[in-house]
């Protein structure tokens, strides 16, 4: 590529190859963990479980046996089955919250990037929302309504939106100054087209990473809410609910707390590893924006 070479394009053939991020060990390990847990959640009825909500007073607080691999809880429900089914609630909530927060955040972020006067107002509101610690805002929101999956999703989404808006906006503000955007302006491209064609694609990589973090954070906060008794209704098998119910018997039967805790930590670990790996391979500068 030095100056003496003929000015015809040196051919760097664009043959199909494995994207670099798939080869990152963090992405691999995290991805496999997440895949395993998603698979387990999807195939919950097939992995040696029984009805996770069946109450059997005769079987209360039984130690592990061949019938119940991790014993039974206070109501005689099978701990293993509940933990497996609990993956469904966590993953569903994580995905819902991440998707809704991202979509809402992108919309608000792009609109604020476009209309300067909206920007001032929206950013003040976002600053205000960011000032309320996420967990407290979520807890206050769920406590207003009767607990259900939908209200938990809404309550967890609202505090995450400002993070997405800020990220989108910071990308918009940076990319807006790039010479290739000026070049697009000077060939007469309209502002909405510039936003969608030249600026929006730059947000995909950081948003993908932020999405994984939101997903992990939503799963953690849902578990925290359920742990405090303000999250999902107690009959829904969820890891937070199980830990909450088990904590009274922690000293006699720590397994009631440890099994769901293990699943919970493993899931969040997988998602976090995936997110870190994506961040490092897609664009290390992303870290600075979050």
């Amino acid at each position: 590529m030095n100056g003496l070479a003929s000015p015809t394009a040196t051919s760097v053939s664009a043959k199909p190859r494995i994207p670099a991020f798939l080869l990152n060990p963090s992405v691999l390990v995290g991805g496999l963990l997440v895949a395993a847990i998603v698979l387990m959640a999807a195939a919950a009825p097939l992995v040696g479980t029984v009805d996770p909500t069946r109450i059997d007073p005769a079987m209360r607080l039984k130690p592990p046996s061949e019938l119940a691999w991790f014993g039974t809880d206070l109501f005689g429900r099978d701990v293993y089955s509940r933990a497996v089914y609990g993956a469904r609630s966590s993953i569903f909530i994580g995905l819902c919250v991440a998707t809704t927060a991202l979509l809402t955040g992108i919309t608000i972020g792009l609109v604020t990037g476009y209309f300067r006067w909206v920007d001032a107002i929206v950013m003040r509101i976002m600053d205000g929302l960011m000032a309320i610690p996420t967990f407290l805002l979520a807890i206050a929101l769920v406590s207003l309504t009767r607990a259900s999956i939908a209200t938990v999703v809404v309550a967890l989404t609202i505090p995450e939106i400002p993070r997405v808006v800020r990220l989108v906006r910071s990308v918009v503000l940076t990319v807006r100054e790039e010479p290739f955007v000026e070049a697009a302006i000077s060939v007469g491209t309209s502002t909405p087209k510039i936003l969608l064609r030249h600026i929006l694609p730059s947000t995909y990589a950081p948003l993908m990473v932020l999405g994984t973090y939101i997903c992990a954070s939503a799963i953690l906060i849902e578990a925290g809410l359920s742990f405090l008794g303000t999250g999902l209704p107690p009959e829904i098998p969820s890891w937070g609910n199980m830990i909450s119910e088990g904590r009274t018997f922690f000293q006699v039967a720590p397994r009631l707390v440890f099994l769901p805790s293990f699943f919970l930590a493993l899931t969040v670990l997988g998602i976090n590893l995936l997110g870190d790996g994506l961040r490092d391979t897609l664009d290390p500068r992303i870290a600075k924006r979050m």
Partner: protein
Amino acid sequence: MLAFIAKRTLSVIPVIVVVSIVVFLLLRLSPGDPAVIIAGDNADAATIERIRSALGLGQPLVTQFFIWAGSLLQGDLGISIFSNIPVTDLILQRIEPTASLALTTLVFAILIAVPLGTIAGATAGSWLDRSLMLVSVLGFSIPVFVLGYCLIYFFSLQLRVLPVQGFSSIREGVGPFLSSIALPTMTLGLAYLVLIARITRASVLEMMGEDFIRTARAKGVKERVVVTRHALRNSAIPILTVIGIGVALLISGVVVIETVFNIPGVGRLVVDAILKRDYPVIQGVILLFSGIYVLVNLAIDIGYAFLDPRVRY
């Protein structure tokens, strides 16, 4: 400099206003009659009516807000519906354990995180760096209550060296205070610690690639001094920033931790209030925590000016 401080301080006002509007609207805009929500499912009409008038629900929304905000400015956070005690008094009664825990955690996390992150950043790729990164991703993934139970299981139930639960004030002696607060501090501190360590590492690592580091080396400066005097010193702003942002993590953690370790602090107060739908208490605590968060970050913002000459004007 003074102008900078004044400007920063004023910029906090809109944030506080938005926070109070959000906190105010939380209850008012919820689906259904706020008075019925607060009173619960089995309340009689008289109770609902009493709550309604206590909250001034009959008036227009804007009037309600100004009445509420007016008393807020006088330090009046309202009266607990459940116990009939002013919210301010309830919070004051409970503030000591929470403040103690927050301070010990802050000290614990920063004292370990900054040196650890600096060494990891300066020796990126070493075993220490790799293990720190591994521990940090674990630290983010374990929920505080899970970690709390793990530590209780190990230190209290197996080794029997620390009490399982409870809180002992520092006025009752330093020994009991430290042993009661050790596990909650470690539990609460881990995520905060790995957060700060990670940012310290990333920032020091980034600074190590800067041109001025090369200049310092060309002057013959010792590597240890290059790292501390140049790389770490230039990382002060990101580190301080994350310490400030991390306060949110601390606040969320406190709410859960106080339940795990049975500590009678503000966190427990708000959890109990939520279970009883005691709205004035919930609002009061959210305002308090948000206020602390905003003020800590304001202080840090102002601190920038002392740490970075480019911010001063």
